[in-house]
Every structure is written in structure tokens, then in C-alpha cells.
């Protein structure tokens, strides 16, 4: 608190070369939302919300985005650690590969997932023949697609945090008898926690809005794989107004969740 007050005092007047583009940037991000709000048929909102399919899609979106984020944390944090802390050969290439899902059009990502994890995919065929498991068209498939697309956000955020953190604390922990795993768990991870949280938030938001990879890999079936973005897209085909309402519901829920999360985390830090 005191630090913040002091910073403000030192900053003084905000320079206009920063303020003008900042406001323009904000407008650029917020205006499309305003467009949705203006065009939204508010009167049909209650009816839309009462639709069991909408609630089902919303629930599915929240559940899958959260599970996908958990999966990303479980796999992405160690991956970020590997990239930031070890001298792997070809680490530069690995880092570039991690960003592939960012560059790949999500639909292509979905096709790529089908080629690997589909019923006839490289690994999927084995899964199907051995365990009778087939990921496409299942809720698990939605999680896989969302995690695939969202993981880079987490990995990049966490890797950045790890690189920025002072490794001497890890050395200090080692001299106190901590194994590498203990160092990671009790020193490294808590010290990069804000970075991990920021990455998880990005990851969750990306997963929540995921459309292309999901519909391509997991298909679209209400209650099982139809998340909100899919419902919005299909509503757009016949009922654009309904699509706007659905998008606003999705936006509102995500804003509420993210704002709530942020407050709690800032408060505790």
C-alpha cells in the first residue's frame, strides 16, 4: 500500500505519449464488446438463459476450461521449469515448438489432434485397440483440445517468471539440505506463484473461448462436447440475436470469475 502510494507520488503527471495510445488501445479492445451490448436483444435474455441447452453449454464450458487449466498446470509448469532451468540441447527449438499451438489455426490444431489421438490416429489407434478409448466426441476430447491450444500461454508465462526469479534462493535452499524436488515445491514454485497464476488465468480464458480445435477434435454434441463458443457459432447460423446473448453470457461469466480471482490474489499478496 505504502509502496503504491509512493510510486504514484514519484510518477506525477502521466505523459500523454503513453496516455493517448493507451486509451486508443483500450477503446480498440472494449468497443466490440460495446457493439455486442448495444445490439443485444435484452428482452430475450431471460428466455435464453432458461434454455437447458444454454446452461448445459455454460456448465460444460466452465468445467472443461477449468480441467484443461489443471491439466496445463500439471504438465506446463514442469515443462516451463525444464525450459528455464536445465541445459537441454536444442532448448531454443523446443521453446519455439511450444508456441506452435499459438500460431497454428485452431481448426488445424484440431485436425492435427485427430491425426494423433483420433480413432485411426498415431497414438489414438493404439488407445482404441488396447483400451477401447477414443477421445474424439467425448468431454475428455474437449479438455484435450482446450489444453492443447491454451497450454502455451501458461508455459510462456511460467517460463518468463522462472527466468526472472533469483536462482540464488534455490542455491540457499540446497545448502539447507533441500532436494531438488523440495526446492522446486517449497522455494521455486511459491516464488513464481504470481507468474503461474497469471499464466493460469490466461490459459483458462483461452480455454473458455476455444472454438476451432474443440469443434474439430471433439465435435459438437449438446451436453457432451458443445461448449458455449460452439453454441454461439451454431446460433449464429440461424439466430444471430441469440448468438449475441450467448456471447454476452459467456463474457459476463468469465469477467466475473477473472475479476473475483484477481481481487482475491492481489488481496492476499
Amino acid at each position, binding site marked *: 500500500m505504502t509502496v503504491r502510494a509512493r510510486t504514484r507520488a514519484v510518477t506525477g503527471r502521466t505523459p500523454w505519449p503513453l496516455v493517448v495510445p493507451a486509451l486508443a488501445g483500450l477503446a480498440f479492445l472494449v468497443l*466490440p*464488446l460495446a*457493439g*455486442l451490448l448495444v445490439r443485444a436483444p435484452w428482452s430475450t435474455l431471460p428466455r435464453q438463459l432458461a434454455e437447458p441447452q444454454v446452461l448445459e453449454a455454460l456448465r460444460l464450458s466452465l468445467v472443461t476450461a477449468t480441467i484443461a487449466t489443471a491439466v496445463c498446470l500439471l504438465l506446463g509448469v514442469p515443462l516451463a521449469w525444464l525450459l528455464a532451468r536445465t541445459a537441454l540441447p536444442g532448448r531454443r527449438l523446443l521453446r519455439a515448438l511450444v508456441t506452435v499451438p499459438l500460431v497454428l489455426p485452431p481448426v488445424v490444431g484440431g*485436425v492435427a489432434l*485427430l*491425426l494423433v489421438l*483420433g*480413432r*485411426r*490416429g498415431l497414438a489414438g489407434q493404439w488407445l482404441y485397440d488396447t483400451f477401447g478409448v477414443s477421445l*474424439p*466426441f467425448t468431454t475428455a476430447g474437449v479438455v484435450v483440445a482446450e489444453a492443447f491450444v491454451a497450454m502455451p500461454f501458461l508455459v510462456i508465462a511460467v517460463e518468463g517468471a522462472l527466468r526472472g526469479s533469483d536462482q540464488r534462493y534455490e542455491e540457499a535452499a540446497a545448502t539447507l539440505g533441500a532436494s531438488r524436488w523440495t526446492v522446486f515445491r517449497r522455494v521455486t514454485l511459491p516464488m513464481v506463484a504470481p507468474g503461474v497464476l497469471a499464466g493460469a488465468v490466461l490459459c483458462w480464458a483461452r480455454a473458455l*473461448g476455444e*472454438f476451432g480445435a474443440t*469443434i*474439430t477434435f*471433439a*465435435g*459438437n*454434441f*449438446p451436453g457432451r*462436447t*458443445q461448449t*458455449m*463458443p*460452439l453454441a*454461439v*457459432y*451454431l*446460433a*449464429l*447460423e*440461424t439466430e*444471430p440475436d441469440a*448468438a*449475441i446473448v*450467448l*456471447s454476452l453470457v*459467456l463474457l459476463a461469466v468469465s469477467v466475473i470469475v477473472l475479476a473475483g480471482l484477481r481481487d482475491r490474489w492481489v488481496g492476499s499478496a
Partner: protein
Amino acid sequence: MLKRLSLVAVLASVVSVTAVSLTACGSSSGTADPGSGAPASGAAAGASSVTVFAAASLTESFTELGRRFESAHPGTKVTFNFGSSATLAQQITQGAPADVFAAASPATMNTVTDAGLAASPTVFVKNTLQIAVPADNPAKVESLKDLTDPKVKVALCAEQVPCGAAAIKALDAAGLKVTPVTLEQDVKATLTKVELGEVDAALVYRTDVIAAAGKVKGIDFPEAAQAVNDYPVAVLTKAPALDLAKGFVDLVLSPQGADVLTKAGFQAP
């Protein structure tokens, strides 16, 4: 999601506007040049570009017709915007500068005619459904009834898109109840699932099966006759290149046009 879609729409219209204004400049310089022998139909308007919004299923055949139109009218450029009929209809009602609209269903054409943007559409072809199965037909599907087997994984188009509506009509006519694993957002996505062997069968258009020849096999079924999809085409009332638009529609309706369309798997109306 919706934000992304509307952005695409905006971009599409920006691109079309730019294309039109560019060609407008080009044509004015063209008329200033006394030596340029303008072709018969487009000469009066002075426009040398025509923009056609067409259903995605028309991609191959219309591209071919466009080529023929351009060679018959030297100096003329045919610009296509292929996409879901519903999306195209929306773009047109939002003011996208199109000259011709060819839709995959009368319903989507109605959106445009209701807005007073097109008059007297003509049905130029019809498309019927086929059962598409992977080339090796793993589930040994032979008839529509085989799709009711719970062991057979079936993909259908979502009911919001024309091929989905047609599939429901055909299944209703046959008195069959099919539980698909997915309701895809468009016919190409549905076909991809068949191509990759993720599903054992799907109901798609004959034209799509022909376009994917070799990778999937089409199976005719009698009930398809109950779910024929009519394709209407119309010159738009606000067409910037009215004469060229009429010329292109004439080509589509001509025996030459019918020939190209039949080769692609369409049937005469």
C-alpha cells in the same frame, strides 16, 4: 467467439470494399483509354469486377465458372466469397458489397430477399444427401437403417446448417432415429470426420462426396429424395456491377453452367 466472427465479417467487407474501389479506379482509367476494347456485357457499366457470394459447397464448380466467365469477358475479374450460406446472408444484410448471392437453401436466400436486397431468386441446381463412409467402410454401412446401430458412429451436420436440416428431414421421412456422436458446424467438417475415419458414416451432400472422391465412398439411399436441397441464385439489388452480375447469373443458368455443376454432383432442378 462472436467477436471473432464479426471481425471476420468486417474484414471481409473491408476487403470487398477495397476490391471494389480499386477496380472502380481501374475501370475509370480503363474508360479513359480509348484503345481498350471493352467486352460486350460489362462495357456499359464500365465495371470490370464482379463479386460473388456463394455457398461453400459451390466452391469447385463456381471457381470453374468464374474462370470461364473471365475468359469470355477479358479484363473482368470475378471475386468469390465462399462460406456458410447463413454467414454470407448476414454479411450481405450488414452491407457487404456483393453482386451475386448463390445460397445452399431457400431459407438463407429469404434472409436477403426479406431485407429487400435481392429480387426473384432462381433455383439453379439441387443437391441431395448421400451416406458418406470411409473408403474401407469399416462398419459395413449399406443403408440408412444401418446408421441406427449404436455401434456405428455417425456424424451429422448441426440442424442450424442446411445439410443438418436436410438430414433430419430424410431421417424423419424414413422414420428412423439416429443418435450421432457429433453435430458438425458445416458439411466440410462432417466430411473430414469421415475422411479421417473418426466416424463410420455421415450424411452429406453428393457434391461433397464427389469432391472428396477416393477418400470417402458415397452410398445413395431412397429417402434422400425427401430432403432435396434447392440452391437459389440472385443478382443483388444494390449490386455495384449490375450488368456483370446479370451476366454471371446467366452463365450459371446456361447449359454450359449446368454441365459444370452436374459434373460436380449437383442435379438439375
